């Protein structure tokens, strides 16, 4: 178990300097995510142009894994349509949980999260933002919980 696998430089950087952090004024959809185990909370708000996420922000208090994962996610999904976001979510999910997952070039910077699967207690931290994004896309206004 190597901590450096979990806390890679990309993760530490996105934790310290989260991208797309804040609330999107006049958003078309938003959702709140909550991980009651560690008390993490985050809000994802987004603007849609047709089927495409034209802008996205997140806000909240969380551990480094959950903050960095959300920050990386916002960068990765901006400009993508629903189908592409869904496909990416599935790739991220495989990355976080499937020990047999091999390097997936489609993940780009998100591949930095691959160390999380060695730390099963932390998978929910990394996936919270994705579930929250999903909830926002599905209902436009929702709360999800990892428990």
């Amino acid at each position: 178990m190597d901590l450096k696998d979990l806390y890679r430089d990309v993760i530490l950087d996105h934790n310290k300097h989260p991208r797309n952090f804040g609330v999107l004024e006049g958003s078309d959809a938003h959702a709140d995510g909550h991980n009651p185990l560690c008390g993490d909370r985050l809000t994802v708000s987004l603007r849609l142009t047709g089927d495409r996420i034209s802008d996205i922000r997140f806000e909240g208090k969380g551990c480094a894994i959950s903050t960095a994962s959300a920050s990386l996610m916002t960068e990765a999904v901006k400009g993508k349509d629903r189908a592409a976001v869904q496909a990416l979510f599935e790739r991220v999910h495989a990355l976080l949980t499937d020990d047999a997952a091999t390097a997936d070039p489609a993940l780009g910077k998100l591949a930095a999260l691959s160390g999380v699967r060695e730390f099963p207690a932390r998978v929910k931290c990394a996936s919270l933002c994705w579930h929250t994004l999903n909830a926002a896309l599905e209902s436009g206004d929702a709360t999800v919980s990892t428990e």
Partner: protein
Amino acid sequence: MAAEPAHLRPPPLDVARVRADFPILATQVHGHPLVYLDSAASSQRPWPVIRAVEAYETHSHANVHRGVHALSQAATAAFEGARERVRRFVNAQSVREIIFTRGTTEAINLVAQSYARPRLRAGDEILISALEHHADIVPWQLVCEATGAVLKVAPINRRGELEFEAFERLLSPRTRLVGMAHVSNALGTVLPVKRIVEAAHAAGAVVLIDGAQAVPHLNVDLRALGADFYAFSAHKLYGPTGIGVLYGREALLEAMPPWQGGGDMIRTVSFEKSTWNELPYKFEAGTPNISGAVGLAAALDYIEGLGLPAIAAHEDALLKRATAELQALPDIELVGTAAHKASVLSFTMKGVHPHDLGTILDAEGVAIRTGHHCAMPVMTFFGIPATARASFACYNDEADIAALVKALRRAREVFG
């Protein structure tokens, strides 16, 4: 501790010998020797407890209170012997006042459902403190929902101490029940339970003390304390999980209806009407956790063998040492700095979420608890989502503190 004359001071604990009693301490975690600093969540078990449970399972198991055969009598003797052991440990008047439950949580729920719920009316008040564990909040909320009673909360200060005068001001003729922790699991604060009991009784309220974090560390004398109900769990005092104790004053228990129905708790059953068994069996429906009770009794023997004063002095020294060492680290903020504390050190590290701290410490073999510690209102009060918490037991030593400090430095390195 205040300086005591040498002849009154307990002989120091032989920690090396104590550690040898706990086989789990030989475990390696991620290539490091286990440093177990999470005893407030659940303590480990020493050989005498493990062996007592094994001996019971090997030689004495049968159901209790219902057979004439030899094993049933042996099991009943072991189970009732454990009850007497508990009575003696907490100095209750009678074994009729010692009810076995699954733990503290079930004990408090029993009082909520059987004592409070039938008695309380709209406008009555239940008074707790702002540092309670969820187990001493939610059962009362259920009672309030069912009866229209109101839950009142006595405040704490920034050190994590009960604001005693505010507590007294909240007591009124409407206060029917006071529920308070003896020791806070999130902050380590030792509450002035004797004064709390006296003030509550003066106001005519009945008092439940949540002793989950107290019994392993402090001498609890229930006759001296005078609380009406007192709850604790075996797994926090070197005993097994799934067994705990509700102490209740006999006159109160007598007047309370059963909580759960079934076998063991009845005297006679007919389809028209059943009659209840005597205390304490009225509150023990169904086959109990017999091996758990045996393990609990062995745990109490173990504690008494070491001597609670010696354990307390040892843990107090560790707490003071750890407090000083953590205060000397940059960026560590202690959460809970009461003048009177027991065995719990909660803290945060600037720029590092407690959850990340927990993972980094675990990678070094150091087990601490991170999160809200089932005390979300405490976290809200301090404006934080969570803390990291190290807690101490008889088997911890200075090497454990050194490992904690080293792991915290490592966390600082990782996060820069």
